[in-house]
């Protein structure tokens, strides 16, 4: 299985117009709600899962 970069990648588009294709400034954020249940779930997340996650292209 080839896990390298996929040819399906969209065309690379560098910003060349007055759009703000830059990192957004960080707004004030309150702690997300959800309480202990959210914390329990967050602790169970495997930080490497997205690295391993591969799918076929769909429609």
């Amino acid at each position, binding site marked *: *299985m*080839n*896990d390298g*970069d*996929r*040819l*399906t*990648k*969209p*065309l*690379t*588009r*560098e*910003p060349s*117009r*007055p*759009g*703000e*294709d*830059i*990192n*957004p400034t*960080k*707004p*004030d*954020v*309150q*702690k*997300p*709600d*959800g309480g202990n*249940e*959210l914390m329990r*779930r*967050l602790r*169970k*997340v*495997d*930080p*490497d*899962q*997205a*690295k391993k*996650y*591969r*799918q*076929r*292209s*769909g*429609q």
Partner: protein
Amino acid sequence: MTSRDIVIGADVEYGLVVEGRGVSHQVSDCVEVVAAYPGPSHRVWDYRFESPRADLRGFNVARLNTDPIDAQFDGGGGSTNEQANCILPNGARFYSDHGHPEYASPECRSIWELAHHDWAGVLAVRKAAEAYANKKEQEVQVFRNNTDFHGAAYGSHENYLIPRKFSAEELARWLLPLMVTRQLICGAGKVGAESGSKVPFQLSQRAEFMTEVMNVDTLFRRPIFNTRDEPHADKSEWMRLHVICGDVNMMCSQTALKFGLMKLGLLLTYNGVAPEWKLEDPVAAIAQISRSPLKNSQVVLCDGFERSCNILRSYLDAAQKLELDVEMLWTVKEAHELLDLYAQEDLVALSKRCDWAAKWSLIQQIQEDADYASGSPELQAYDLAYCDCDPDEGLFYALEPEFAYQNPAEDQMRRLLKAPPQDTRALARGIATRFAETDACCWRAVTLQGETIDLKPDATYPAELNSATDVKTFRELIKL
């Protein structure tokens, strides 16, 4: 034409992970997952009326473009019709599509009814995955998202059945600016980027996969405006606007808004009052807006520039010229309010009502607490966990009680899988799944004992169909 005259449907492809298996097995695994669906269903889909290579611009393409990487994994196998299709008692189709379990909702007229039926699809996919996992003794996960973060996208398509009055070019002229900008208030949100320069977060999962303005393809070289001419109804009367550039939403209110905005755009177009914006490069615009959360970015027009929020708001302002029903009034009000919050950069308030904002708010907090880099794979893992369909594990479910609108609970989802909408042809299809004498079903017809009955999209289907217990009664009622 009123909003309820526009029959709508949602097709959502889910991400699928089977323990110990990979992309090369995804098609066969998916077929087995669908085949394992434990609920009542009819298993034969009628492919006779499908025409995915027909283009609205009046020609047929010889072949559809496919992903050359995925082609490496194809070979052998295959599946029977019965293994890969479930037509459910609510009129929905649950099936295997290019390795993704796909739930195509029954046709609805109401945007809220559609949003709820679309969400019921989560339960159908979960139940199939659980049945497969139990049978194989392998863990299975399903995700309600549109990307694997490595360049593979899968779709959540919207369908709008409308009278065949306008050409594809005319519809695109009036609707493209709406399709490009609606992500501001109904994008699903995504950590990082899969093309171009790095960004911490995007409004849309799908935007950067749109590489063309118009074409008939869906698997590769995806367009903002898809020109597939496959109405699933009499082609001389009907056309289906097949929208493939949107994200799959987690909040049902966002699904309703996404469909409501497109219905509004269609109503404005049919009444000749849609705003006109000539985008110089729609493909660049949809990507640029996605990459600029809470930035009211400028969109390049053929004759100048305009703020993205202003373009979207122009559709809401034009709606004042129409007499709107309750759902369209809600759409306009909700969109105005979310755009106001967007302009105020009020992420906290947006996070209670807007999918991308809910996810971004959570991701920022995780980043701060764990010191992960912006847009990093570690944060993408939390993005993925947010979309995990397991109600005991998915991060969305833990946050949902704080949201402004609640999704249907599991008991309601269960009922939705059994009960077709009462005001579309989905009623007839759903009831037809009960009978052993049913040969096959599809969007436009059911075939019973060798007789194919056309399901006209604008016909009235009598409520008495709900109590039909035999084919003879069904036939008599449907031909009234």
